[in-house]
């Protein structure tokens, strides 16, 4: 779907692997010695009770946090430190737990920012709105429109996103991430705070993205039903430690997982 350099990875091979990653803020250990992998083409869920270190894990993957220990290999390249915009250039897009949109901009402009890495023409051309820059603008605008169609948000194209209801904001945020044509899409609680209908819509979009574009997705979600329906494999974190990893059915039966969610009698 996009050429970002690096080796081509076949569907089913490891796209990203996290090895023995530990992350601490001062004395607080957010993630301790966690390892798992994400295979190309799959939907991978990261679940766990509140404070399990799920968001921290996502932040490590896209370069917001730099782990003190451990290695992350993305598309065969190992790194310990990467800046967020390098992650974006490498093909990692994400959404946030509490929607992080550009509130003053319209939905369309928000989505267009997702294309900003791909716009390479000189700004002088862009100023003149002519020649190659115009062609480029048109091409990216078309890509943005396709995403708008795909997410069925045509009618709010020109609305400043600050005015939109929460569910639609989440959708625009997904659109912005999709505009980057990512290889790996990180979704932090894409369905938080949504009603049943909105959840179903969002689930369908996630499955479609995975299906149509072949995008690999890693998502954090609390709704177990959603996780069971969507994900191919699930990794479970609790207090920053990995306690289970496997198919949804396997994970659900795991005693450690049940204990983590329901608590253990001491």
């Amino acid at each position, binding site marked *: 779907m996009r050429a970002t350099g690096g080796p081509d990875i076949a569907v089913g091979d490891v796209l990203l692997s996290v090895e023995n990653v530990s992350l601490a803020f001062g004395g607080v250990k957010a993630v301790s010695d966690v390892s798992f992998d994400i295979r190309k083409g799959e939907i991978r869920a990261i679940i766990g009770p509140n404070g399990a270190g799920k968001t921290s894990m996502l932040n490590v993957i896209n370069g917001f946090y730099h782990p003190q220990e451990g290695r992350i290999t993305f598309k065969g390249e190992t790194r310990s430190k990467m800046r967020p915009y390098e992650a974006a250039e490498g093909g990692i897009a994400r959404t*946030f737990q509490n929607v992080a949109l550009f509130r003053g901009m319209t939905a369309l*402009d928000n989505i267009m920012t*997702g294309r*900003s*890495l791909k716009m390479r023409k000189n700004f002088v051309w862009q100023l003149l*709105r002519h020649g190659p820059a115009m062609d480029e603008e048109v091409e990216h605008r078309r890509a943005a429109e396709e995403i708008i169609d795909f997410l069925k948000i045509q009618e709010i194209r020109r609305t400043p996103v600050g005015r939109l209801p929460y569910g639609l904001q989440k959708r625009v945020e997904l659109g912005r991430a999709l505009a980057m044509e990512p290889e790996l899409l990180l979704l932090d609680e894409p369905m938080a705070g949504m009603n049943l209908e909105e959840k179903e819509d969002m689930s369908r979009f996630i499955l479609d993205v995975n299906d149509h574009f072949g995008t690999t997705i890693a998502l954090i979600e609390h709704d177990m039903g959603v996780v069971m329906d969507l994900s191919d494999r699930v990794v479970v974190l609790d207090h920053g430690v990995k306690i289970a990893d496997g198919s949804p059915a396997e994970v659900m039966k795991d005693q450690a997982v049940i204990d983590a969610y329901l608590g253990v009698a001491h």
Partner: protein
Amino acid sequence: MDLLYKIFIDPFVQMGMAPDLLVQTLWDGLVAGVLYSLIALGFVLIFKASGVFNFAQGIMVVFAALTLVGLHEHGIPAYLALAITIAVMFGLAVGVERLMLRPLVNQPDIILFMATFGLTYFLIGFGELVFGGDPKVMIASQLGLPKGAIDVKFAGGFVSLQKIDIAATIIASLMVASLALFFQKTRIGRALRAVADSHKAALSVGISLEQIWVIVWFAAGLVALATGIMWGARSEVSFALEIIALKALPVLILGGFTSVPGAIVGGVIIGIGEKIGEFYWGPLLGSGIETWLAYVIALVFLLFRPQGLFGEKIIERI
């Protein structure tokens, strides 16, 4: 009755009696306004990209002008000095990003605001150390800026237009127009607005905060340089110039902190309002009202449009 007459009738009678004086006053106001706009523009650029009110904008004007004149005093030809000064402003932008913004990323705005105070005092000290504290004369003629005045016949009198003022107005307009286009129509402009809205979201779509900040501070530096040259040519280059930054405050309130066109319109309104007020109503209050009239205009405005003329509407979902 007499007072009311003096406030509401007499000034307008005067305006009608001597239209040449009125036009002269309007012109002086316009020129002052354009320069206020330039200063305000420097603030707007940085405020848009980082949500920070850059207290150091005033001193950046002085620093840029001082560097230019100082270099020329050391025997460097005017245009070369100008090029070096531009390079120095770029260096300053990189330095600010590396040493000030990067370590403070994601801190509350007030912290960054305080940091710009620090920058102010650093630039005062550094400028004094390198170029000395004495007032200097702007090298206007060496830079090819015109001198003298054109007298235009008007309504039985003369309106005197200083050539430097005409040049200032043209240069400022060109600068403003190109900046406005740059930030509205280019990828970098979109990135800039994105950074202003949300740092983490901007990072997640691959916008480099470092790059944007350098660009913005450099643009603000260039605006400061232009302001320094123009303002310096009208008076002199000294640290006293720093207080002109305070003139930008009412302009910003009027125009909105985030609007480039607002800075321009606001500047012109304040400039003209000030001069007209001083000339026609000033005598009533014993003159000298120019220093505070701008703030009064801004305050009245604030009552009706807290977001300014062109400022972004404050959207808050509860």
